[in-house]
Every structure is written in structure tokens, then in C-alpha cells.
């Protein structure tokens, strides 16, 4: 075995998951050695697979091999502590991996330990997935000869690609050879990229990742009984998805080719891990296990020591940890109870708010608008949405009745009197917002929270004419409200801790991640996007071809290029956002007259008969932009523009931090990941800006010390 001492030394404090062994006599009289993986903590600290854990597991398997040779045992099985098999590799110390060689060791250790479940013991091996299994946890099972799964297991997934690596402890080679290439592509690549979708136990069984599925009440007993059947030959295991000759000869490469194209169109070619995974899956078609595992070793070593993985882990920790403990949030105990919610406005946005609040808070929600017809329409829309949820069986009939009864409408703001939380979703104009808040303030208690969903106005000014402006907060959702996980909670200089705390607690109850921002134009997400879109529009106005702009920002690996983004948010909204930022910071943000005219003409992306973008820019749009070209226009190369955008972003984020818009660079990244879908491999924005040198160029330092970069 390889010497892994260097790896173990990295984490002297590893929470070791021990491998306990107990012999079990099966009904036939055969003896099974059952390994229980248990880190001695409760289910809130899932068992993980660190170096010491894997070495212990490996040693235990050595001992069992000896016992098998002596005919003391007839089989080996592995299961986990209650509710959990294993949550995969222990990633707590990956940022301390000093070099590629250590990364390679990490890959090899997985293969050399878990791999012993495959053909090494001299007796059949079984894995009983009794609960949560992620990454390396799933690979324990894949390495074994047979698998069962508990029908109540919380989640099963190979999330490696989501984190910038690949299933490198056997998963990339074993899985396609077990369940076929198309299924493996879904599990290894598609699911991680679908916001890290996990498999439910019955899906695991249907895919063929488990040979049998049993209910939770008797899972272990039934698994043991089933094992006895397999050992005695009474139970025959059939694997319908195991790839045959035809699949290998015909289907395999085609599936890889399709997946490659899909990937490129969906996420571009910047993120490395999905393509690396694709290559491994491709090679698994006709390589033997040893070769496959060696390829995994190299791939994993490359990725673990690279920039993207480090940035991804940084991003993962932001989403998993920082998002749950928002920086600067006041004591939760200060939060006021929200027992009734008022929504001003009955339009589309207001209806989305009302639906979200009533579903998550389950308190009365009252909506209002200028006239009864609009109110009725709003209530009807919300009731319709609730009926849809019922039809999709997302809620029960009783729950639908409960929710519908909670939603009412009025044209009389006096009905808002007992609301503790009022949110407005009216026209984005200061005077209008000031007016509706002043109207409602006459009726509500002096402490009731007034929340505004403004994206471009000053929250402080919206509250300027109120008797109690200290209860005003910004509560900026992202569209679509039900889906996007971010709320920017805007604190004005007057906002009290009680109001801020109420906003944060309410956001959490809405199951959103809230980031506290100062009351500055665009807050976080819109300001960054305004910078990017302003540069993009400026460049095309200057005669830079649209394609060059797209090419310039391609190395970022953003979910969509600037023009697709403009099309998505709406050209009018986009033009307005640019105007707002140009108004606030004229020397740094571009306005775009061209964009206004494009919005007027409602043309930008070329679309086919069905309204689907063709990937090109509409010729009319090109003509309109040309009209706005100044005399001294200077087209940029992709390289020039990329540097401009990188430096512009670094400068703006630096200024935002200087201006204390948020507590730290981490919060900016969190906002961009959650609110704009910026990729993990960028770490949001700042790790990327550090690693491409933009931070150094602009302000002579970095956002992170040390920089979040690989070691290769």
C-alpha cells in the first residue's frame, strides 16, 4: 500500500469515522462480518471519510480478508450509523493540501481502501445504504459486489462535479459500468449541475445503483435476509441497466457526444470538472478497472490542486455556512412577531409576494390596490396559484383551504391596521412609494415593519416622509420570487435593530438567504450587473462586435452572456438600471441610449418563429446600436474588453467594501452566487478577480489573503 502518512498529518483533529465489526449468523448458518461506519456523533454530524477513517477501514478489510481465508466468515457488509451511511470525503482540510502530490494521495487512498470491497476479500461484499450517502459515501457501495438501499434514505448523490472535482474513488469508472452510460451521465454530471439535485432511494433502485430496496422499519434485518438469499443462491440478482456489448459499441460514444454539446450550450467550456468527468465516463467504456481508477487518480489530483476547486469549496462554504449566519445580523431575539402581512399592490410581483408569505408564514395576508377590480384579480391569481399547488400535490386539500382562507383583498387601507409587516410592490417611483407608505402608516402600529422591494431607489428616501422611518427596511427579492434564494435586506441609517432583525428572521422563514446591505444604489447584485452590462453596451456602442463582447466575458464562465441577460431581465428594466447607476456614479457607470432605443423597439436577440433565441443578435438591433456610435468611437478587442470588465468589477467591489455596503467580500460573492447565479468555479467574483490579477492591477492588493487559488 502507498504511504499516506503525509495525508494523515494534514488533519490531526479529524473526526474519525470508525469501522466497527460484528459477526452475524444468517438464517442459513453463514456468517457475515458487518462493518458499521460510525463517527460517534449524532446525525447532525454525518460520518465523513477522512484519511484516518479510510486507513482504519482498509485495515479492517485486511483483517476480514484473513478471516475469510480461514473460512471464518462467508461475506462482508458495510452499513452506517442511524440515518447516515457517509457524507463523503472530509473536505474540511482540502484548502490545506499543499501540492498536487498530496491531492494524488487523497485520490489513491480512496481507491486503495474502498477498492478492497471489490474482489479483494475472497468473499462477496455488500453495502447497505441505510441513509444519507454522498460522494465517497456512494462510492463505498459502488465498490462492493452488492447493494441494498433504505427507502427512506434522505439523499443519495455524487455531487463532486458541483464542487469542481469528479467522483474519483471509483465512481466515474464503476457507475457507467453498473448502470449504463446515459444513467451515469445523469448522476455524475447532469444532477450536480441542476443545483446539485440528489436522488431519492427509489430512483437509486430504478437506476440500478442498488440491487434491492427495503423499508426503514426493518431495513437491516431485511438486508441481512436478502444477503443470505444471495449467498445461498436462492436470490438471483439481475441488473437490467448493466451495459451490454451493443451499448458499448453504439450508444456510449453517442451519449458522450450529446452530453458534451449540451454541457457546452448550458455552461460553456470554462468549468473544468464536468468535462473531466465526461472524459472519464467516456474512457470507462473499454478500459479495465485498474486503468479507470488510475485515470480517476490523475483527474482528481489535477482538479483538487487547481483554482476552480478551491474557489468552489469557498463558494460552497459561503452557501452552506455564511448564508445561514448572515454577517451583521442583529440578535434574533429582537425580531418582532409577524402575525399578519399586508401587501401593497395586487399586480404580478405583489401576488408572488402574497403567495410566498402565506405559504411560508401561514398567517393572514391582505393585499390592496387602487380599485376593487385589481384587488379581486390579485386574490383570484393567488387562489389560482394555490389550486395549482394542490393539483400538483405539493399541498393537501386542507392546506389549500387554509391558505386560500388566509388571503384576502381590500381597497381600504384601514384593513391593514393589525398587520405587523407591510411590503410594497408598487411602481418604481419615489413619490408613489412615499405616498403608499404614508397612507398605510396612518393605520398601522408605530412598530409594524414597512418593507420595500425597491431595486433602484433609496430606501431611506422612501421612508423620509414617515412619522416612524426607523421601521423601514429594504427587502429586495429576485425574480422569480418563488425560485431565487436571495433577498438583499437593506438597512438605512435609521433602521432599528428590531426592524432589521425582524426582516432577517422573516427572510429565513421565507426560506430565503438574506444578506444585509447598506442603502446604496443597486445594493449588491444590481450594481455589479450594471457594471457588467454597462461595459457591454458601451463596447457595442463603440463599435465592438456583439460576438467580441460575448467572447470577452466567456472566460468568466457566467451562466449567460450580457445580452441574453438583458433579454431575460427585460430591455426596459436593463436600461433603467443603467440610468440609475450612471446617475449615482456618472464617472464609473455607463448609461446606454442605444439600449433605450432597443427597448423601445423591443429588439436585441434574434429569435425564431417560436420566440426562441437563435444564438445570434437581431440585425435590427445591430443597426440601432450603430446609430448611437460616437464619432471618436474605438472598438475594443476581446482581450481589451475582458481586462476592462475585470478591472471594473474589481474596482467596484473594492469601492463597495470601502463604502461598507456589506461586511465583507464574502457577502458580495454570496449575493452573486445566489442572486445572479455566478458560478462556484469563480467563487462568485472576488476569488476569480484575485486569481486573474485584477485586484492587484486596480488597488494593489487582493480581496483574500492568501488568494483562493490552487497549488498546481
Amino acid at each position: 500500500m502507498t504511504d499516506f502518512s503525509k495525508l494523515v498529518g494534514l488533519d490531526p483533529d479529524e473526526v474519525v469515522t470508525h469501522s466497527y465489526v460484528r459477526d452475524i449468523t444468517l438464517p442459513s448458518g453463514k456468517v457475515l462480518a458487518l462493518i458499521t461506519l460510525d463517527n460517534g456523533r449524532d446525525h447532525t454530524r454525518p460520518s465523513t471519510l477522512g484519511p484516518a477513517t479510510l486507513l482504519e477501514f482498509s485495515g479492517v478489510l485486511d483483517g476480514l480478508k484473513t478471516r475469510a481465508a480461514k473460512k471464518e466468515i462467508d461475506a462482508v457488509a458495510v452499513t452506517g450509523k442511524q440515518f447516515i451511511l457517509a457524507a463523503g470525503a472530509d473536505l474540511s482540510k482540502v484548502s490545506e493540501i499543499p501540492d498536487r502530490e498530496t491531492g494524488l494521495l487523497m485520490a489513491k487512498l480512496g481507491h486503495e481502501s474502498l477498492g478492497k470491497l471489490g474482489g479483494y476479500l475472497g468473499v462477496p461484499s455488500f453495502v447497505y445504504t441505510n441513509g444519507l450517502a454522498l460522494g465517497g459515501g456512494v462510492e463505498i457501495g459502488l465498490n462492493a459486489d452488492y447493494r441494498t438501499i433504505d427507502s427512506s434514505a434522505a439523499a443519495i448523490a455524487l455531487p463532486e462535479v458541483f464542487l469542481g472535482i469528479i467522483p474519483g474513488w471509483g465512481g466515474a469508472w464503476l457507475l457507467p459500468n453498473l448502470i449504463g452510460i446515459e444513467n451515469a451521465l445523469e448522476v455524475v454530471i447532469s444532477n450536480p449541475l441542476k443545483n446539485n439535485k440528489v436522488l431519492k432511494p427509489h430512483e437509486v433502485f430504478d437506476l440500478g445503483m442498488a440491487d434491492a430496496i427495503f423499508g426503514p422499519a426493518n431495513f437491516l434485518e431485511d438486508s441481512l435476509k436478502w444477503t443470505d438469499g444471495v449467498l445461498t443462491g436462492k436470490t438471483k440478482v439481475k441488473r437490467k441497466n448493466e451495459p451490454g456489448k451493443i451499448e458499448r459499441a453504439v450508444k456510449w460514444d453517442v451519449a458522450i457526444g450529446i452530453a458534451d454539446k449540451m454541457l457546452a450550450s448550458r455552461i460553456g467550456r470554462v468549468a473544468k470538472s464536468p468535462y473531466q468527468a465526461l472524459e472519464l465516463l467516456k474512457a470507462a467504456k473499454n478500459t479495465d478497472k485498474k486503468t479507470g481508477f488510475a485515470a480517476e487518480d490523475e483527474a482528481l489530483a489535477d482538479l483538487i490542486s487547481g483554482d476552480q476547486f478551491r474557489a468552489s469549496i469557498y463558494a460552497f462554504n459561503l452557501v452552506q455556512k455564511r448564508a445561514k449566519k448572515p454577517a451583521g445580523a442583529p440578535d434574533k431575539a429582537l425580531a418582532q412577531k409577524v402575525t399578519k402581512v399586508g401587501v401593497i399592490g395586487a399586480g404580478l410581483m405583489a401576488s408572488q409576494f402574497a403567495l410566498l408569505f402565506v405559504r411560508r408564514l401561514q398567517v393572514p395576508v391582505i393585499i390592496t390596490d387602487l380599485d376593487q377590480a385589481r384587488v379581486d384579480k390579485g386574490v383570484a391569481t393567488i387562489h389560482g396559484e394555490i389550486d395549482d399547488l394542490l393539483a400538483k400535490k405539493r399541498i393537501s386539500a386542507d392546506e389549500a383551504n387554509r391558505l386560500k382562507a388566509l388571503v384576502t383583498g381590500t381597497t381600504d387601507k384601514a384593513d391593514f391596521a393589525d398587520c405587523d409587516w407591510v411590503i410594497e410592490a408598487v411602481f418604481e417611483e419615489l413619490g408613489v412609494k412615499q405616498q403608499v407608505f404614508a397612507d398605510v402608516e396612518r393605520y398601522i402600529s408605530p412598530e409594524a415593519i414597512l418593507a420595500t422591494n425597491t431595486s433602484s431607489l433609496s430606501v431611506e428616501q422612501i421612508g423620509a416622509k414617515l412619522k416612524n422611518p426607523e421601521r423601514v427596511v429594504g427587502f429586495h427579492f429576485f425574480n422569480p420570487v418563488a425560485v431565487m434564494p436571495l433577498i438583499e435586506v437593506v438597512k438605512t441609517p435609521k433602521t432599528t435593530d428590531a426592524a432589521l432583525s425582524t426582516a432577517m428572521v422573516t427572510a429565513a422563514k421565507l426560506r430565503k438567504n438574506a444578506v444585509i446591505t447598506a442603502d446604496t444604489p443597486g445594493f449588491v447584485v444590481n450594481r455589479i450587473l450594471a457594471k457588467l452590462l454597462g461595459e457591454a453596451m458601451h463596447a457595442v456602442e463603440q463599435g465592438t462586435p456583439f460576438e467580441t463582447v460575448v467572447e470577452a466575458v466567456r472566460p468568466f464562465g457566467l451562466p449567460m452572456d450580457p445580452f441574453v441577460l438583458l433579454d431575460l431581465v427585460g430591455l426596459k428594466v436593463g436600461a433603467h438600471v443603467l440610468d440609475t447607476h450612471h446617475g449615482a456614479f456618472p464617472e464609473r457607470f455607463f448609461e446606454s441610449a442605444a439600449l433605450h432605443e432597443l427597448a423601445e423597439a423591443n429588439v436585441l436577440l434574434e429569435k425564431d418563429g417560436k420566440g426562441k433565441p437563435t444564438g445570434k443578435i437581431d440585425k435590427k438591433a445591430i443597426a440601432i446600436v450603430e446609430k448611437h456610435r460616437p464619432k471618436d468611437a474605438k472598438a475594443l478587442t476581446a482581450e481589451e474588453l475582458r481586462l476592462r470588465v475585470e478591472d471594473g468589477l474589481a474596482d467596484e467591489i473594492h469601492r463597495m467594501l470601502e463604502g461598507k455596503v456589506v461586511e465583507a467580500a464574502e457577502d458580495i460573492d454570496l449575493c452573486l452566487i445566489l442572486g445572479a447565479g455566478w458560478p462556484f468555479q469563480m467563487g462568485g467574483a472576488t476569488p476569480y478577480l484575485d486569481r486573474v490579477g485584477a485586484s492587484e492591477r486596480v488597488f494593489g492588493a487582493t480581496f483574500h489573503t492568501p488568494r483562493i487559488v490552487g497549488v498546481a
Partner: protein
Amino acid sequence: MAERSDVVFVDGVRTPFGRAGEKGQYWNTRADDLIVKAIIGLLERNPNLPPERVDDVAIAATTQTGDQGLTIGRTSAILAGLPLSVPGFSIDRMCAGAMTSVATIGSMIGFGQYDIGIAGGVEHMGHHPMGEGADPNPRFLAEKLVDPEALNMGNTAERLHDRFPSLTKERADRFGLRSQQKVAAAYAAGKIQPDLIPVAIKSEAGWGLATQDEGMRPETTLEGLAMLKTPFRPHGRVTAGNASPLTDGATVSLLASADVAKDLGLGAKMRMVSFGFAGVEPEVMGIGPIPSTEKALRKAGLTIDDIGLFELNEAFSVQVLSLLEHFGIDDEDPRVNPWGGAIAIGHPLAATGVRLMIQLARQFEERPDVRYGLTAMCVGLGQGGSVIWENPNFKGGKR
């Protein structure tokens, strides 16, 4: 109008029994999980039973709190995956809990209200030591209604020795030894195991599987027994060797009207003939089965001589011996507890009644010459319970 019907014991299963306490196999297993696993095992063994046909689930537990609380008959029905339409309730008659479950469900079927019922019991004496949380009324003491000593079962057994001097420690020890030997022989012959439902057990050393009773001491000798301490009295007679150990376990049975059992093809291992419960002085609770058996015989129109097999709970040797002596039966009569009893297997209070029935049912299969059998047991605070069963395999012959 509902028609009265014959009641049959279709089937019964149990978990292996465990030693109560931290070192016992079930220390990390919940009581409700034990009964749930037993119910699931019962349902799996009887695939002809449509689960929605179960009319009720009666589960006994002496201490009805914690993992034995919350109306365990209902919770365990839900946890075992029975349809939500199947109701459930809890029963407590201390040691005769499961027997009372059977008597109750049997009566519901016999009176024609139910077709099929599940009856059982569970006691996790490790999690729920005897008398846990009890708050006896001070009147018991003030009015001398019950001697405080009567609340301790070991003391009541010593009192039985006082009352019947002929029941010596030596006889009690010998009976205890025979119990160990008979259980060991039954295990060796594979008589007990078929009705055990294995239970996955957690321990700090990983998952294991409980497949047999944990309290057995086949190495027991008379000499060894003589050396044991008498914890209830200095120089007393009751020892760990002639008493049942503290035990965790669950038992469950399927009862049905004879007609419905036939219609569904469920089979019938025993037919319920009669039952009786009776009270005695709490200080000598061990003689409780004598009057309860007399009641049951009377209702059945039988005499003790009609009984071909006895499954008597061995809470204490002396208490079984008192019944045998009362009815003039020899200590070593082969009809009595042929496969041993609670002294070796253990006595998880409210679960034991059905364990007696499971063993009697198995013996009926082997003994077509026997027509009637008795299951009987004593109960704390001075009670006894008895159920008389008829063997459907009876082919005539002796009795």
C-alpha cells in the same frame, strides 16, 4: 345483528428476549421498535391477511410512558405500516398485559364485533424498571390495605415460601434448573427459533442482530444455584436462579374468528375455549393463577384433568409450584412447560402472555393427542390470569 363466533389463535411471533439493562442487547433499541418489528414479522408470515382487514390492535405495556407511551397500540400500528384505518389501543394488567390483550381482542371477536385483531405486549424493563414513576396512594399504607412489601415481587415470592413450607428452596432451585435444561434442549431441537423475529440492534461496537434469547444459562447446576444470594431476605429462598430475570422483549399474536380465518386461508393454531382473571391478596400474588384457572375451567366446563399441556409463567419457581401442588401435579410433570419457561427465557412483564401461547401452539402441532392446553400466569398486586385453548390438531386419544 352480529353473530357470536369461535375465536382462533392464527399465529404468534416474538422478538428474541434481551437482558434488561445497559449490557443487554436492546439497551439502544426502543421498546416501540421491538413491538413494531414483531408486528411486521407477524404480517409478513401471514401474507394471506389483507392488512386493512385488521379490526384493532391491542398492545400491552406495564409502564405506559416514554417509548412505551402515547397509546402504544396505535403508534405501533402506524409504525408497522398498517393502514391508518386500523385503530389501536393500549392495555395494562402488569404481567398479564399481553394475555389481557388476547382476552380482550378474543372477546371482541367472540361477540361478533370484530373479524380479526392483533394482540400483544411489550416491556423494555431496561428502559422502564418495575414501578418506574409509580405514586402509590398513601391510603395503602395508612389503612394497611396492602403491605408495602407486596409492591416488591421478590418479597411476595418469599411470602409464598412462608405460606407453603413444603415448597422448599431446594424444590424451587430444582425447578429453576429444569427450566434452564428444558429451554436449552428446546433450542437445540430448534423448537423456539421459528417464532423469533430477528431484531437489528445498535451498540457502540456497531450494528448487530439479536437472534436468540439472551438470558439463558444452560451451564446452571444445583450446586451453583445453592450458592446464589437471596436478595430479598437474609437467608431467604428466592434467588436469581429460581426467579425470572429482568427482560426486554415484545410478543404479538393474530386472532380471528374461525370463519374468517378459514375464508382467508389464515389457518388456526389454537381455538380459544375460555379465560379467567382473578384477584388474591397482593402479598402472595404468586397464587393468583390458581383461582383464575379454576374460573376458566368452570367456564369451559372442564377439570384440571382435561388439560394436556400447561404453559405456566415462571415468574418464580415457588409460584408455579404452588399451583402445581394445589392441583396435585408433580413438580416434574412432563405436561408442564415442556420447553422450559421464563426462568431461562426471561419475563418481559406485559409481553409474556403471548409467549406462553406461542409455545403452546407449537406444542399442539406436535401433539395431536392433546386436546386442551392452559396458559396461566400470576400478576403483581395480587392477580392471576388463565386462558384455556383447544388443539385443532387433536385427533382423539388420551384427552
